[in-house]
């Protein structure tokens, strides 16, 4: 089924919620850990699910992504991270979705159905 333009699925809402709780930019694995910690029963989000959702949120300008300075990765002896940060539009959307969820009586959680 084709999604309505601008609509968000549960994993995207959960990412926005997790991102709005962070001040610093975050990378994919860090986010997967945060999502798993927020919902103890679930394992780490699948790669495909996670990065497809991140790409879609970045496309909608709710998140912005930039590659880490290669010097930092080199110094730490690991691959470069792609860092994501919530945009102003993303923060506003997260807040609106939180209000909507509170009104619907599902405050602070998004249905896990559909999150691989």
């Amino acid at each position, binding site marked *: 089924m084709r999604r309505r333009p601008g609509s968000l699925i549960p994993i995207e809402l959960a990412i926005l919620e997790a991102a709005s709780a962070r001040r610093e930019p975050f*990378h*994919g*694995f*860090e986010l*997967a*850990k945060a999502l798993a910690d927020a919902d103890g029963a679930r*394992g*780490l*989000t*699948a*790669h*495909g*699910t*996670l*990065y*497809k959702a991140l*790409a879609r949120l970045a496309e909608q300008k709710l998140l912005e992504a*930039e*590659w880490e300075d290669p010097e930092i990765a080199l110094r730490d002896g*690991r*691959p*470069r*991270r*792609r860092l994501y940060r919530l945009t102003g539009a993303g923060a506003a959307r997260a807040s609106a979705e939180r209000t909507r969820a509170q009104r619907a009586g599902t405050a602070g959680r998004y249905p896990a159905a559909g999150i*691989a």
Partner: protein
Amino acid sequence: MTATRLVLRWVDAYTRGLPGDARAARRAELASDVWEQRAASGDGLGAQLALTSRCVRGIPSDLGWRHAQRAGRRRASRGSVARRLGWAVAGMAYAALTMMHGFNATVLVGLDLYGDDWDPAGLAWNARVSATLLTLLVVGAVLMRRLPRAGASLVALGALATPIAFPWGAIVYGPIAFAVTLAAVARAQRLRRAQRETTRG
């Protein structure tokens, strides 16, 4: 085969044939994710199974993402053809307008069709200025792909100088020059963004 190799091979497989920047970005992002997970959980059997599970559960989304990338590229390609056609038509119209001055100077004056009311030296000046401005536009347009800012500056200079050089035609040249300048600036920004993305990826 270790779980890490499985994940990286799978990324190689489903990004094959995609544009270089999208492929490189996805591979680099997954390489980073796998490294982070190994650093956090180690290489034990449980960790390997968790990594494999993340990879396998994500396969439908990976394929969906690949499909979206290819569809997006096809749409962009169609848009690019339309944009190029638009540029070609606008360029030809502009060239036709500026060449009219050259035509005036070389042919009509040569045939003495203007009579004594027209100054051949003035028309020759028009032709030289037209040729200079046209050269600026063409060189700027060609240069823009490699040096977007410099190319856009030349195009803007060539376009904006036209209504100044030929004030009697400002009503025609003015809006065209303004539109050409805006289009050149927008194109330069797009190209610079694409260049930055490629460098980062």
